[in-house]
């Protein structure tokens, strides 16, 4: 019956004049036409992908409750906790937009993967403690039926921080705070250090703090992969694209001090596809800025920082990309299996990598060094290492051979080197989860939960991160962290 009906409809199509056909009759290759007609019938019938309409499978959905800008570990952690803490299953549609699905420049994949509780702020310590318990029970949190269990390759070897005379007092008070919060850290004198780790040269070392439990390093890719897998099973949408525009609507309101203030609200996000001008406007209710080293760009798109300097409107997000190098070297007579991650107050650190006498380490430079945003060239900076006295001064490596090196960006908070968490006071539906200056990976589970609680409940429920809100940049109150690596 279809064969009889269709030629009627298509017959007119066959007879239309087209350039190239002779006037007065149609010379068709009948076989070609038949195969075309067969294809069209197949595409209309159910069970096969419909080729009649243009393919939009690469585009994000047109509406989404929450749009997470940035698919690194912080963005995925926020998305995970949003889905985990929502009241109804499927109650919230979350879209994660990531510009680069290979994560070639993302800080998560390029990081050394350490986790430690040796901070000076109680909030940082609590975040790390929670993250340690999250990683320990990762197969309960991120369980997906049928998927194999995750192996984070966690090395529970601990962190050893070395302090000189002038930093010893600060280290003692830090350790006191850490013990109060529940971290298992102990202080060691130079003699005890020499007994325990005979390969350390204790000249110039006045005090050391050693983390005994819940500290070490792990594989960040595994965490990222586990989060992605779990999110896909929970129904989160992923899109590869770049956020190019926020469409906002504003409202002028009067504060209690009789000042007019403009409150903005983002109601549409334009996501542009890779290598094309095609973009999709996504209507959204909440936007989460977890773009890492590029968060300031996203914030500027929303109009944060566009105003006279010194006012709340003119306060920019002070997060910048800072390049950090990591080197891997081989040293056959080096420290043994029990080596913790050793760091000293000059910013240099190293740790063991695997069983084959390989070590990896780096150094955070003390002075400000700004780097071009687009370059992440990998160079073996052996000369720089030797000249600037890179080696952590207390450990002597005999005949090291540099095997490889790479560089990654810290999302460096130039104000006080601590994260920015929570909503912006003027752009009311943009939430930040960025600026952690090198400890984003180890605090990601805790921060994700805090942001999700802020969105769903309106306030921080488990760990109070009010010292990390955006307001402090305007008010000038620094939440300084003394131990950064």
């Amino acid at each position, binding site marked *: 019956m279809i064969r009889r009906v269709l030629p009627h409809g298509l017959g007119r199509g066959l007879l239309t004049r087209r350039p190239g056909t002779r006037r007065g009759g149609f010379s068709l290759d009948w076989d070609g036409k038949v195969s075309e007609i067969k294809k069209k019938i197949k595409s209309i019938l159910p069970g096969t992908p419909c080729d009649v309409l243009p393919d939009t499978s690469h585009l994000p959905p047109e509406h989404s409750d929450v749009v997470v800008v940035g698919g690194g570990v912080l963005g995925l952690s926020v998305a995970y906790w949003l889905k985990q803490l929502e009241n109804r299953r499927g109650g919230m549609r979350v879209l994660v937009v990531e510009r680069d699905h290979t994560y070639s420049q993302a800080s998560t994949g390029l990081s050394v993967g350490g986790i430690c509780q040796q901070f000076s702020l109680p909030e940082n310590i609590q975040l790390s403690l929670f993250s340690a318990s999250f990683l*320990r029970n990762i*197969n*309960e949190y991120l*369980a997906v*039926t*049928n998927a194999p*269990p995750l192996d984070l*390759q*966690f*090395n*529970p*070897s*601990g962190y050893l921080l070395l302090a000189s005379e002038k930093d010893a007092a600060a280290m003692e008070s830090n350790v006191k705070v850490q013990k109060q919060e529940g971290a298992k850290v102990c202080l060691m004198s130079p003699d005890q250090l020499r007994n325990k780790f005979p390969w350390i040269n204790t000249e110039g070392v006045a005090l050391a703090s050693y983390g*005994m*439990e*819940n500290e*070490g390093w792990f594989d960040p890719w595994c965490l990222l992969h586990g989060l992605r897998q779990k999110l896909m099973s929970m129904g989160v949408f992923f899109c590869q694209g770049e956020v190019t525009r926020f469409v906002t609507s504003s409202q002028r309101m009067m504060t209690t001090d009789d000042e007019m203030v403009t409150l903005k609200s983002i109601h549409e996000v334009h996501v542009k596809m890779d290598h094309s001008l095609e973009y999709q406007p996504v209507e959204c209710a909440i936007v989460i800025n977890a773009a890492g080293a590029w968060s300031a760009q996203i914030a500027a798109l929303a109009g944060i920082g566009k105003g006279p300097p010194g006012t709340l409107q003119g306060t920019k997000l002070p997060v910048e990309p800072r390049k950090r190098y990591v080197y891997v070297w081989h040293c056959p007579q080096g420290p*043994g*299996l*029990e080596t913790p991650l050793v760091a000293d107050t000059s910013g240099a650190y190293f740790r063991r990598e695997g*069983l084959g006498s390989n070590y990896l380490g780096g150094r955070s430079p003390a002075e400000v060094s700004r780097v071009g945003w687009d370059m992440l060239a990998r160079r073996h900076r052996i000369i720089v290492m030797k000249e600037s006295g890179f080696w952590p001064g207390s450990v002597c490596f005999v005949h090291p051979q540099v095997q490889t090196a790479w560089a990654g960006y810290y999302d460096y908070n130039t104000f006080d080197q601590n994260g920015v968490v929570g909503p912006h006071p003027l752009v009311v539906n943009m939430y930040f989860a960025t600026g952690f200056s090198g400890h984003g990976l180890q605090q990601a589970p805790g921060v994700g939960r805090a942001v999700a609680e802020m969105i769903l409940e309106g306030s921080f429920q488990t760990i109070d991160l009010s010292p990390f809100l955006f307001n402090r940049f305007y008010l000038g109150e620094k939440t300084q962290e003394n131990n950064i690596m």
Partner: protein
Amino acid sequence: MWNGTRGIHRLGGAVVPEGNQKKERKMLQFLNNHFYDVEALRGYLLQREMSKVHLKNRSFTWLEEQHGPYSAGAFFILKQGGAVKFRDKEWIRPDKYGHFSPEFWNFREVPVEAVDASDCEINYEGLDNLLLLKELQSLSLQRCPHVDDWCLSRLYPLADSLQELSLAGCPRVSERGLACLHHLQNLRRLDISDLPAVSNPGLTQILVEEMLPNCQVVGVDWAEGLKLGPEEHEVPVFIPGCPWLKVTAPVTLRQPFPCPSSGLGR
């Protein structure tokens, strides 16, 4: 059918499936991928197994004030199915029904010397109870399915007294966890045989021996992993001063050197 699920949940791949279990697993996977209810049911069963393990490892530290730390810790071990030896007393073991004699409640001041927790489902939380036994000298965690690297990092409070530790057959212990045993400087005997998660057993044995110089590390032949050639009279060579020499090409000698470890390649 549900025996198959327990096999799937066991981690580390230490349990090799028989032919039957493999077919059941494939069938289960097929059903899981095509039906939401099967997926939900499997998820529920997985959660139930995990909560059973949590229940077994609940905290017994509240017993400490009434009966003392040693009895509280011993009660935890006996409840899990392990055995306990108090100083100058006999081993106390539960019978096949899980019952054990209540005489240990009277041993308030007597410390526990040895614990045999083989095949018990102790995990990280359960170690809270084990660490009450401050003067423990011998601990056996053989074939414990939930003891992993995190648990090993928790053993350092027993460093003063622990002399013997056995981790044979634990599917989740890897060389990264063995690295944190360096706190246990009084250890005299360490058994690390048959650890499937350790990537390079021979090299790990050597590194652990270096880390714990006063300890006898048992279990793995350091020659495991050395490639021997196809020749008949091949004997692994020990050259003093070069214990890391990897013999990849066949080496023939007229008189083989005496080998220090027993049972090497003869």
